[in-house]
């Protein structure tokens, strides 16, 4: 089952590094258990916002590894900026979380 997300956002020279870990099985639909196919279950859309502005929009497939980890970079930024990340999967489940830039 999809679970909580973790965000780590840190300041670097000239940019903010945003790392996110999502808990998700990312089932491809190709895998079989005891001869029965496991239905596809994967994240399709993700959105990264900084202080309410969308900075990255991603569309992903079942080819992304289980419990996906992504890194993104945003120019500038300052401590305390709010980073909000959300996803939805092919079953319509979704999750979102927020963290401040450290």
């Amino acid at each position, binding site marked *: 089952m999809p679970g909580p997300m973790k965000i780590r956002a840190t300041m670097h020279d000239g*940019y903010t590094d945003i790392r996110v870990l999502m808990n998700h099985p990312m089932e*491809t639909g*190709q*895998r*079989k258990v005891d001869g029965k196919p496991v239905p596809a279950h994967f994240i*399709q*859309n*993700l*959105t*990264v*916002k*900084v202080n309410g*502005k*969308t*900075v*990255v*929009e*991603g*569309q*992903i*497939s*079942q*080819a*992304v*590894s*289980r419990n*996906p*980890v*992504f*890194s*993104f*970079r*945003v*120019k*500038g930024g300052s401590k305390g900026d709010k980073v*909000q990340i*959300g*996803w*939805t999967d092919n079953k319509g489940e*979704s999750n*979102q979380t927020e963290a401040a830039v450290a």
Partner: protein
Amino acid sequence: MNEGRRVVLRRAGATGALAAALAAGLLKPERVLAATWNTAAFAAKTPADALKSIGAADALDSKDVLIDLPQIAENGAVVPIEITSNVPGTTSIAVVIEKNPFPLAGQFSFMEGALPYVKLNVKVGQSSVIRVIAEAGGKHYAASKEVKVTIGGCGG
């Protein structure tokens, strides 16, 4: 004039309109996600079809699209890939794993100061060329790199 009655009527009108908008799906509370998913591109079974359906069939090879990828991946289920585009004005990056059953692995759009950079882990079913497409100013720039996989990332 009965002022209290006016207020009640006005409020009733406003909440009625809000309810109608909610029912019509115009307003979704706490909605932060883009609801679009390029079904055609992700369902494509060949790299050529996947490129065509993201409009990148005519991509030019470019040295400004950098891919950091291990030469040999012991475990195809988790292959780290780091992409940087130095093409000025890059607005999106797409990842195509040529030998996967559905080659398009993802597409990322950058706006509002986001740098054209992404790092992620992908599944690679068998040794394959990974092609990265950066879009800038309506043009597509491609780079590719091969990864050798000793244990597949799909099935089993």
